[in-house]
């Protein structure tokens, strides 16, 4: 799922300087799962912001909402009734949610309350790690189910660089070397021969994020 973390409160306060009444919208999808933008976080952030403004002797009225999924048009539409007299919207959904609101409510400024980080998995409660960069042409079949695009610091597709030592990456003493992990896994599964394959240059420009937004059209689902 998408992982996000809250922006520093001071940065958020800076966005809101000029406003007296805002709508704060969370999301019960990914942002809630990674404890960055669900109902609970909406309540905590609202209280924090109110308090901070009170200290400055200024009032801030905050309407609180949490959308089931801010990336879906029908749920965004459902917020339409809540924006009356609202001077700005603060969203603590991922960047997709923030933009969905900005597209829908074209007259109202929308601000992001979180930094959207990556697609990843939960390692343990409170620890998330990136696992996929949505490169658009998955190579996990070649690499034992371990993603070199995400996990190798140089995105190498043909094996480890010279800096891999004792299982750690050259970038620091803590990051595991993706290619050591790939090697170990292919060895364990009896698939070491895959390492001999030449993997040609990736088509980043066609399949990846470098060409403006990618679009999927499923004709069978389109109305």
């Amino acid at each position: 799922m998408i992982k996000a973390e809250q922006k520093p409160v001071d940065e958020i306060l800076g966005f809101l300087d000029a406003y007296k009444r805002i709508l704060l919208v969370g999301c019960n999808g990914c942002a809630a799962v990674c404890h960055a933008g669900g109902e609970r976080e909406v309540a905590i952030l609202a209280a924090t912001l109110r308090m901070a403004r009170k200290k400055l002797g200024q009032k801030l009225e905050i309407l609180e909402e949490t959308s089931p999924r801010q990336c879906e048009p029908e749920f965004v539409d459902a917020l339409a009734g809540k924006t009356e007299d609202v001077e700005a919207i603060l969203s603590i959904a991922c960047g997709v949610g923030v933009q969905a609101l900005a597209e829908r409510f074209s007259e109202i400024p929308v601000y992001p309350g979180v930094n959207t980080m990556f697609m990843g998995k939960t390692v343990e409660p409170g620890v998330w790690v990136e696992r996929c960069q949505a490169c658009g042409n998955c190579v996990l079949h070649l690499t034992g189910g371990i993603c070199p695009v995400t996990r190798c610091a140089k995105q190498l597709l043909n094996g480890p660089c010279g800096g891999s030592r004792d299982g750690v990456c050259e970038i620091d003493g803590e990051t595991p070397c993706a290619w050591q992990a790939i090697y170990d896994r292919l060895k364990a599964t009896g698939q070491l021969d895959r390492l001999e394959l030449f993997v040609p240059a990736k088509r980043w420009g066609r399949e990846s994020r470098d060409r403006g937004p990618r679009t999927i059209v499923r004709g069978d689902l389109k109305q």
Partner: protein
Amino acid sequence: MRAGSHLERVMEKGLFAVTGQLIPPKGNDAGGVKKKAELLRGYVDAVNVTDNQRAMVRMSSMAASSLLIGMGLEPVMQMVTRDRNRIALQSDILGSTALGVKNLLLLTGDHPCLGNQVDSKNVHDLDSVQLIDCARRMREEGKILGGEGFAGEVGILIGAVVNPFGDPFEFRVVRLAKKIDAGADFVQTQPVFDMNRFKEWMGMVRDRGLHERVHIMAGVVPLKSAAMAEFLRSGVPGITVPDNVIGRMAKASEPAEEGIRICVEQIEELKEMEGIHGVHIMTVDWEEKAGQIAEMAGLLPRPVLW
């Protein structure tokens, strides 16, 4: 003849090749580059010109290579995939060969976070194996990636780097094989300090017959001090320095001389090793010692070939 370079002739004749190293300055002083290059004249067959080594901003390897050509020296222009996408890389292959570069050494490069531009957007569009494949296709098919042709010919000797000291160890020979298959004509290894591991690796190389398919040059670095040995061991990715070498450096009364002695001993051992076709002497900003090392190791005079 693929490139018609001097280095290629030396290798094709089965002579033991010697390359040196020039690290372009953190600045634009052409005179300084020439001065350093002059120290290598006559002692090596070609000079590797590094490409923003350790991810530090320096004079470009293409410009420094061009300065060397102007002096009648032969560069091995290094190119890393870290800073340029395939457009820039292929453009630089065309540009450098137009300037007279005949030897390229293609590698990934150290990660930007180890250098002085940690906030850069790191490129890594191609990896080194893909770049080698790309260069070979430019040379052999006259085509850039994607299949389009270009005017002219790219006569280049293609070099690669292999690290027998990285992990996973068994993969290191696979990696060499991939680079040969992709098109490497010669490879230079990371500096050899751990001779035992190097021998083990060469055994694996010979078992696969890879030494028959590519010219292997072993890298050596003359140590200046025990501190430098320690720094290479702990601070430079991909280099291992065993305890006995550190110990010798620490005990020496004249560490710099001891470092050169160790280097010469290594070269002598490497000269005798089946499958080693040359040495790459990486002096790391100590160019004035290259001649002495070559002399002491019995590598002089260098052949003059036409």
